[in-house]
């Protein structure tokens, strides 16, 4: 080895260690925070989920997989699944269907549609707490505006807050209201990327609007549909604010996230059980996201 190349090697080594140092300087704090407050909790949850532990108590006992067993077999655990699945499916389907309809409407070149689009999107960015308060007032069986309107038709307002099923319907409606604008805007972007000549060619060929929709629009929209469905499922499974404000006790609305909160910080205070639920929640969401990534990769290759 000549001295020149040895010097080159030395310079490279110095540069590399300088790079390591700089990288840690620039990205280190962020990574450390992510490790401490995102990854560490995952492990901690797995550990805590094996305990029967009352939050704040100094002692706990080891119960292995009992918490998981209880969640998957007990009546109250099944109830959480039921609420979560119903809520998720209903809000996802509702938001996406109404969002698509609105996107189709907005896709027409009508004056005033940007303002409409903005207005439609706005509930998505507003505080779930504020929205929950507004809709609690609207749904109130004695003084709410909904009760008044029903009264004009001679009907009595249903007891939204006292009946488990009605409470769930109520929060589903509110959640759809909050999210359909987001779906609409995303669909709109997808619709606008459909080449116009394709649509015109089909029209010339004699295809009616309905036929065009199902044969051309929908298939070309499928990546958007897929992306939205995943995004909406993730969002619905993490819904909390509206549920907590409208139904503070989770009566009929205890989805898995709400149940985690109720179990750890509510009157049950079973930290071990809540940790088990957290692990299940993470695994489910991870599986759904991983599925999406795989699917999108494959789709990209095909197109």
């Amino acid at each position, binding site marked *: 080895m000549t001295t020149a190349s040895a010097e080159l090697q030395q310079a490279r080594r110095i540069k590399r260690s300088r790079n390591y140092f*700089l*990288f840690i300087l*620039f*990205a280190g704090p*962020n990574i450390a925070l*992510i490790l*401490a*407050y995102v*990854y*560490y*909790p*995952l492990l*901690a*949850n797995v550990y805590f989920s094996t305990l029967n532990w009352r939050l704040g108590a100094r002692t706990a006992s080891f119960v292995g997989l009992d918490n998981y067993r209880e969640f998957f077999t007990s009546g109250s655990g099944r109830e959480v699944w039921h609420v979560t699945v119903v809520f998720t499916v209903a809000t996802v389907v509702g938001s996406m269907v109404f969002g698509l309809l*609105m996107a189709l*409407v*907005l896709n*027409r*070149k*009508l*004056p*005033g*549609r*940007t303002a*409409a689009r*903005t*207005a439609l999107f*706005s509930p998505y*960015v*507003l*505080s*779930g707490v*504020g929205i929950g*308060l*507004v*809709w*609690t*007032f*609207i749904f109130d069986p004695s*003084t709410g505006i909904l009760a*008044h309107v029903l009264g004009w038709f001679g009907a009595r307002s249903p007891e939204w807050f006292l009946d488990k099923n009605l409470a769930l319907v109520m929060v589903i409606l509110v959640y759809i*209201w909050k999210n359909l604008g987001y779906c609409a*805007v*995303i669909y709109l972007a997808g619709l606008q990327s459909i080449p116009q000549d394709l649509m015109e060619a089909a029209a010339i060929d004699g295809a009616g609007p309905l036929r065009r929709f199902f044969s051309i629009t929908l298939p070309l929209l499928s990546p958007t549909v897929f992306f939205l469905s995943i*995004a909406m499922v*993730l969002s619905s499974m993490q819904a*909390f*604010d509206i549920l*907590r404000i409208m139904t503070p006790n989770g009566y009929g609305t205890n989805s898995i996230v709400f149940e*985690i*909160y109720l179990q*750890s*910080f509510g009157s049950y205070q079973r*930290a071990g059980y809540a940790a088990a639920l*957290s692990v299940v*929640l993470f695994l489910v*969401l*991870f599986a759904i*996201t*991983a599925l999406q990534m795989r699917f999108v990769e494959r789709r990209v290759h095909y197109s």
Partner: protein
Amino acid sequence: MSETGADWRQAFTRRNIMATLFAGYLPMIAALLVIALPLVWMVIASFKPVSEILTTDLNFWPKDPTTANYAAVANRVPLGRVFLNSVAVTFIGAAIKVFLALTTAYALVFIKIPFRNVIFLGILVALMVPPEAAMLPNFLSISAIGGRDTMWGIILPGLGTAFGTFMLRQQFKTLPTELMEAAELDGAGHWKRLWHIVVPVSTPTIATVALVIIVNEWNNFLWPLVIIDSPEKMTLPVGLNLLRSIETETGSYGVLMAGAVIVILPVLIVFAVLQRYIVAGLTQGAVK
């Protein structure tokens, strides 16, 4: 997407007018009413006195408008304090997060070390972890180091930002390499390059990321709810939750509506003004 005269005329031709009205304006107006009416009702009700809330006959406008509800909110909850807490938490938290996102994204793109793609993958995976799943252990860790009921206790766990890092990394990757090489030849260190070259060029993306982070920080509810006890340290959403627990009388909806206005109005205004960036930021992910 500007509405040209041609569009207008096209929409209202004889052939199209039925379609325009029934498949166009009718659903549009219906949707707008559904979206806007609750919010309008919220504002109106916040100015109604108790007698008009409890009444059986419905009046749209308040017959006797009053600001008593807002005074009541200020009375039950230390409103000024709570509002300032929200402002402080939002801006300090957002500023730190944006800063960290900038430096991390820069490092991932421009500081060449092996494994940086693996590290990026690790950060990406962190995006998939719902904050609710991490709530309990974070509560215990923060509690154990004395962060319960403090402002930094609210901010700290959320600072590890994956969303901002992801967005900015995508943006930085699109920068032409000649730009960076020229700066390197000029002898500018990484720090200088970040702040004097990369940031000025990427301002729209940074603004978008910042706005999304600010909106989310302002609306953040679950974590502050869990970590804060005393009303003086609460942020706006948590303070309103306390208001909801305290105000259980049916006549107190006016107070609750006043509270809702206070938490919703700032974001609504910001959104109305900066909607282009916010919508772009939130829908970015769809156009992967």
